[in-house]
């Protein structure tokens, strides 16, 4: 029942915020804050559950029985982590847009909350139709946020985003239905349930086709190398809260989809496709880093670092051993926090100077020391400094993928050098060097410092003590590996008693279940 509320509260809050706009300009943001904070607290109450029970919460009711569709929500450790990330960033995005929405605040928060509801649905739906419904539900409000409240070139960016995601969404729809009917032909049962569709026997050609349908849809959202072109425009033109949600949440739905659906539903096909996917991931890491370095637009630069970081996710998912998949989970959370923070900083600079052009910046450190210090912190996180969350994620992914594909791992590791270059480049261009015209540049406000401080604390916590997160996702990873065995599992004499334990320092060892 809690899961239903997690979706319903943002929806109801969104409608209330929209209607409240008529009589107050400040009421919508308070409603939006409540509609994100309450679900965050509700989701936190699920943390107490023992992840060993596997499903921490479930909700199920009949929806369209005529077509075999159920309204089935369930959260395991992985789902809960993603839901928490959703509402954590949701609260922050309401906070960051607190007094920067110039027109129609009610409609803005309506869209923002609709995205959060859709994202929560994506992370908890275990009926493939419901999943697809929520998947598509996220797109339109994001389109409005970019298209109405975005920057100069907003219409182009919004339409490009919409067309990319819709086209790939249709492929996903065809693949879901293809899987549904293949399963119906095999067993005679009409169902969209994830649990029942697992293990469907597929003809080789059909299986590969369906797997690619799922893969392309998730790779576009991720975004993986050849499908990344929408990302820079959308991130750059979106308002700050929109960029935060895009980078922090929407990209994660792609990674989540790969982990939850692509490999478990199509284990053999994925294994065959893994070299290609890992190569695409490695290319994305290097190419994204190179493109980031070449940008003169601050938000565009940060956008391309996402391509680079999400390449690690792709490599990790298709390496598919416990280290790599755990790394993917940490990497997704850490990237959501660090890149979100960088977008907040870029948005703050743009609000003050009305430019994103790096050539117009420089030497801002003396005027805005708080901003500079925090930017340095998040740049360090982005380049993978040990002690911060991104390091744990990337380290685990590389550790895992090294055992599967040495070439891709070596190339991916080179991306860390690229990350160092572009991260320091941001600091160098914006805060060091010759002081430029910086009229109107004021230091961060208390509201911004609080928001960034929370994000920084999150990254620090994730970097120094990732055990709770790993512990939470560990049962999910184990269950996924039972469905789709990791490469080499057949050769080893049984699973290592707890693969994650090897990946974290001894003093942070995850206790093995009794």
């Amino acid at each position: 029942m809690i899961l239903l509320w997690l979706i319903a509260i943002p929806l109801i809050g969104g409608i209330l915020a929209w209607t409240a706009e008529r009589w107050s300009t400040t009421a919508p943001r308070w409603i939006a804050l409540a509609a994100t904070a309450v679900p965050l607290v509700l989701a936190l109450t699920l943390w107490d559950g023992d992840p060993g029970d596997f499903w921490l919460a479930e909700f199920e009711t009949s929806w369209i029985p005529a077509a075999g569709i159920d309204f089935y929500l369930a959260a395991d450790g992985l789902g809960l982590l993603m839901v928490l990330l959703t509402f954590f960033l949701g609260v922050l995005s309401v906070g960051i847009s607190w007094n920067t929405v110039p027109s129609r605040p009610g409609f803005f928060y309506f869209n923002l909350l609709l995205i959060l509801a859709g994202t929560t649905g994506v992370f908890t739906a275990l009926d493939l139709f419901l999943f697809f419904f929520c998947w598509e539900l996220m797109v339109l409000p994001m389109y409005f946020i970019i298209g109405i409240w975005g920057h100069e070139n907003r219409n182009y960016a919004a339409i490009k985003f919409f067309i990319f995601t819709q086209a790939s969404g249709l492929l996903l729809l065809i693949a879901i239905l293809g899987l549904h009917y293949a399963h119906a032909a095999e067993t005679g049962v009409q169902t969209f349930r994830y649990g029942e569709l697992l293990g469907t026997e597929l003809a080789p050609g059909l299986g590969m086709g369906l797997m690619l349908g799922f893969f392309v849809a998730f790779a576009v959202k991720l975004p993986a190398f050849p499908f990344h072109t929408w990302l820079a425009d959308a991130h750059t033109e979106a308002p700050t809260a929109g960029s935060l949600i895009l980078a922090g949440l929407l990209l994660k739905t792609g990674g989540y989809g790969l982990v939850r659906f692509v490999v478990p539903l199509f284990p053999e096909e994925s294994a065959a496709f893994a070299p290609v996917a890992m190569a695409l991931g490695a290319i994305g890491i290097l190419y994204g880093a190179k493109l980031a370095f070449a940008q003169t637009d601050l938000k565009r630069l940060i956008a391309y670092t996402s391509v680079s970081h999400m390449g690690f996710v792709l490599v990790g998912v298709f390496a598919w051993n416990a280290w790599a998949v755990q790394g993917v989970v940490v990497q997704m959370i850490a990237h959501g926090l660090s890149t979100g923070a960088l977008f907040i900083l870029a948005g703050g600079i743009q609000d003050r100077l009305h430019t994103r052009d790096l050539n117009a910046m420089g030497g801002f450190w003396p005027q805005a020391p708080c901003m500079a210090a925090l930017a340095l912190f998040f740049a360090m996180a982005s380049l993978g400094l040990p002690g911060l969350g991104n390091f744990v994620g990337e380290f685990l992914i590389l550790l895992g993928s090294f055992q599967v594909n040495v070439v891709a791992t070596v190339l991916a590791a080179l991306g860390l050098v690229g990350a160092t270059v572009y991260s320091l480049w941001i600091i160098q261009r914006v805060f060091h060097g010759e002081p430029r015209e910086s009229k109107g540049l004021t230091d961060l406000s208390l509201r911004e410092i609080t928001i960034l401080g929370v994000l920084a604390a999150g990254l620090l916590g994730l970097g120094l003590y990732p055990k709770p997160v790993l512990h939470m996702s560990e049962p999910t990873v184990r269950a996924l590996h039972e469905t789709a065995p990791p490469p080499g599992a057949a050769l080893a004499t049984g699973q290592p008693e707890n693969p994650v334990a090897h990946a974290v320092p001894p003093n942070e060892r995850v206790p093995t279940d009794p």
Partner: protein
Amino acid sequence: MTPSDLQALLPHIVVAATAVAVMLVISFYRNQTVSAVLTVAGLFAAAACLPFVWSAEADAVPPLFRVDPFGCFHIGLLLTASVAVTVFSHSYLEKYRMERGEFYILLLLSVLGALVLTVADHFISFFLGLELLSVSLYVMVAYIFTKKRAVEAGVKYLFLAAATSAFLLFGMALIYAELGTMAFPEIAAELGGGDGLRSPYLLAGTVLVVAGAGFKLSVVPFHMWTPDIYQGAPAPVTAFLATVSKACVVVVLLRFLAAFDSDAVPGLYLALTVVACASMLTGNLLALLQDNIKRILAYSSIAHFGYLLVAFVAGGPAGAMAATFYLVTYFAATLVAFGVVAYLSPSDREADTVADYRGLFWSRPGPAALLSLALFSLVGLPLTGGFMGKFFLVGAGAEARLWTLLLVLAVSSAISIYYYLRVVVAMYSSIEDTPQTRELSEPFAATPPYGNTVGAVQALLALGLLVLGLYPQPVLAMIQSVTRTF
């Protein structure tokens, strides 16, 4: 004619009687509102007969008609749409100083033609219904004869539809010459032998009949008339053309094609596949080039009937179910869209350029929200009926493993997003963006505020779209029960 036959044809009789009644009333008392109210009352009365027809024991009136639940469902759908068109027409014609009562006679007669088509089970009733529908439509398209475009559109429609009727008749004659029967069940029995379309005459006849239907559905290559006539006709008539006059042909084509087994006549299904792909791509690509919202919707309707043909090719109960459900969602969305256009049109022209809609969301949120919802449904976004419609369509295609068609569908509907969004972008762009917007949206100041009947009808249709998108179970179960026989 037995009493039970009369009972089965009750909706048709009521609609015909209403047409006569409106004519008689006009000859004594001319008042647009009275005619419109009478028309709506007649349509409701016809719909109220449906439960009796549904439960009628003898569900067929052989040999011409077959009044089965499938037909009844579509009669209900067409009557609902006709009520909406009547309401839109009333407010639209209010803006013109001319004789307006006759419009409703024509409307009722073409509704009657459409209703005949939905239960047609014989070439004679097929042709009668089609002619009754078309002849009234020629006049309706050109009804505002003070507008050049309307007259041009009317004449164009007359010529093309007359030519199509000739094709259709010739095709029927060829099939009759070969099989010696004009009744669909007997044609099906004759073809059931397994040797398929055994003679060239039979093949030519079938192709001509399907081509005639294709003209009404405006699928490629019979689509040329659509944009001009959609643009020239008054907006409520366009709504009628886009919905009622197409749906009844879908029904009759579903019945006719049910006689052809896809294994027995692969050529026919290959042809349908080609037509479907061509319609989806042509409709969506040409719509990209338009600046007129009625032309955009015209091309989009070409594409939508291309999507619908996917269900035809898939065939079987799943195909018929998907086609029917898609029609329902398409009806609601199209009626809302043209309803908004009709509502916003000033008396001197149609409010149909994309520029007319600039900033509409900020100046008139009501119509803008309705039009957005309709367009989102046509795109197939969740929360709207169009999403479910597309889902079941793709489902029918996936079940029949029509991967090529589905890929074309995916690609072409990705293209379609662009032109739908152009309208949406215009509506949501801020008025300050362009200095001339104030002048452009000036005519809209004259339109009455929402809250009247038109607004209520549109709100109901929009609510229907949302219900279809969120909880389609009741409608779906009903459609499944009526399409079981396919």
